[in-house]
């Protein structure tokens, strides 16, 4: 089943009179359960494409379908509705709310979808357990290491059982060991839950975890190595 379908998408940014073409006609299909890396040098359009898939941004031209629904022309609130419950995000900076504990950060998306009571508490506990942070549940982000914070972010991304998780350079601010741990967690959860992962990276150590690598260059897909799969045990 196609989770993401992108048809000839362009995205032009205007800064004053200067137009920058971030995407120049990208078409891409991502199937359910994939573990896909978007790679390419800085400025190749990885982040823009990820934002397009994540309903954070809208294409200048072309169409984006998520779970078969055209999301290219949704308004702000409709896009927020789409993101909530369908798409989970993991960012390069450890995007947690600093005033909330690990537990409360994971709980936040569940509150937004109106998940209440025992069910919610059990879900949060189970998620923190699955990323190995049960004992850190009541710590605030500033009391957690970078790796721990990123694992909380992964737990949060999974909270509402979304069909798609998008990660933008998830290991860029982590050392090798923590980066490895984060990628292993993502791989394991992908296999255990079947949730689709798409992540942008230019770190070769991360790319090898991907089962599919989509290479972008100057806003176009340069290579699409579907089916190619690295063995996570090999690094």
């Amino acid at each position: 089943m196609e989770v993401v379908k992108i048809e000839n998408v362009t995205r032009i940014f205007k800064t004053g009179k200067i137009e920058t073409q971030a995407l120049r006609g990208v078409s891409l299909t991502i199937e359910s359960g994939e573990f896909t890396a978007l790679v390419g040098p800085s400025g190749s359009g990885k982040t823009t494409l990820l934002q397009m898939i994540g309903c954070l941004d809208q294409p200048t031209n072309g169409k984006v379908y998520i779970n078969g629904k055209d999301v290219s022309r949704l308004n702000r609130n409709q896009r927020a509705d789409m993101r909530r419950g369908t798409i989970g995000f993991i960012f390069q900076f450890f995007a947690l709310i600093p005033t909330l504990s690990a537990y409360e950060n994971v709980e936040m998306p569940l509150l937004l979808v109106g998940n209440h009571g025992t069910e919610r508490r059990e879900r949060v506990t189970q998620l923190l357990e699955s990323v190995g942070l049960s004992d850190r549940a009541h710590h605030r982000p500033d009391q957690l290491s970078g790796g721990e914070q990123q694992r909380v972010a992964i737990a949060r991304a999974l909270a509402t059982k979304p069909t798609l998780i998008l990660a933008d350079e998830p290991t860029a601010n982590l050392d090798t060991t923590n980066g490895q741990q984060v990628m292993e967690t993502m791989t394991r959860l992908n296999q255990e839950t079947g949730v689709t992962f798409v992540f942008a990276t230019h770190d070769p150590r991360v790319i090898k975890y991907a089962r599919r690598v989509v290479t972008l260059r100057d806003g176009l897909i340069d290579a699409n190595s579907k089916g190619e799969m690295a063995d996570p045990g090999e690094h």
Partner: protein
Amino acid sequence: MIQIFKMAFRDLGRNRRRSFFSALALAMGLALLLLFAAFIHGNMNTAIDLAIRLQSGHLQVRAESYDESKTSLKWEDLVENPQQVAAQIAALAPVKAATPRLFATGVIAVGDETAGVRIYGIDPLSEANAPYRDGLVSGEYLTADDREGIYIGQPLAEKLELRVGDQINLSANTSNGDVDEQPFTIRGIYTTGTYGFDSYTVLLPLAKAQTLTQTENHASTIFVLLNEREQVDEVANALQTGSYKAITWPEMNELTIQYEEMANSYMVFFYLIILAITATVIVNTLVMAVFEQTREIGILAAIGMKGRRIMAMFMAESTLLAVGGILMGLVLGILVVSYFAKTGFFIGDFGISGMLLANTIYPELTLDAAVNLTIIAFIITLLAGIYPAALAARMEPVEALRGGK
């Protein structure tokens, strides 16, 4: 909802000092408003009270033709057999005291110095004249049969450098339009704490004042004090018969009442200015908070929080600031008002012509004023929160995420 307030509370806790000072700005603004409202109310209440006690009474009974502004002494403009009329009025149940008074204008001369004065002929024995008796500073109070004594206010005595026992010449208008001059001895010096009254009013026993002005057995008015201020219309109606008219204290103190109304309407502008300043502080705090939290707003939007909810989060912050600031403001305001209510606020010899103002103001905070000002302060703070909250809610998630990087 609880989560929103929890987050708002913690957000404010992130920069405790800034949040505290913003709430403090609101607290001081509100405290200032409460103090001013209490000050004006206290001042006006005292002014009315003074005017009633010293000048107008609750009610006066005068001859139909008496014109106060001319201080007429013609017999036909005066009340005849005033003691008898006063006794009849005093017999009415709501009446506390009724006493005749004769008003005249005159000039005091001591050596080369002169001063224009208003002469009050009073019955020294009447309880209605207690404020003059109790205000004795030196010498002694008048007696009914004193033929040479005069009782003068302290500021006037100081101006003319007079002491008890000193001689003065007092000229006064008489009933037939002449001016008569007689020597008097300063019997006593008084103060009522009201410069506007004390500096120009001299008191004589009624009989002596009648002799001086050739108004035998007549008085300008019957000065009436009631047990309750509110009974005035009832008593006035009962007395509105025959050739005399009854004038009530609101009629006689119209200027003071109007002044209070005017002061109150001016105060609205003052309140708004204070609250606008406070609101600016709140807006500033929240706008800073929004900019600092840009990335977090992006994250919340990314995980599907709608603009409405983001707005609610920042509105919750302004609500918490408002509640904190208002509680502090009420405590601060009530403390300051209570302090001045006890010690009084000395404004010195200060007068507005036609009004009696005490030299010390005792602020009085009414529940009405406290409730109204609290509600206004709360609403204005919430209104101030709208702009920063809308700013946060309008942020595009992509830009907000980028902005925080």
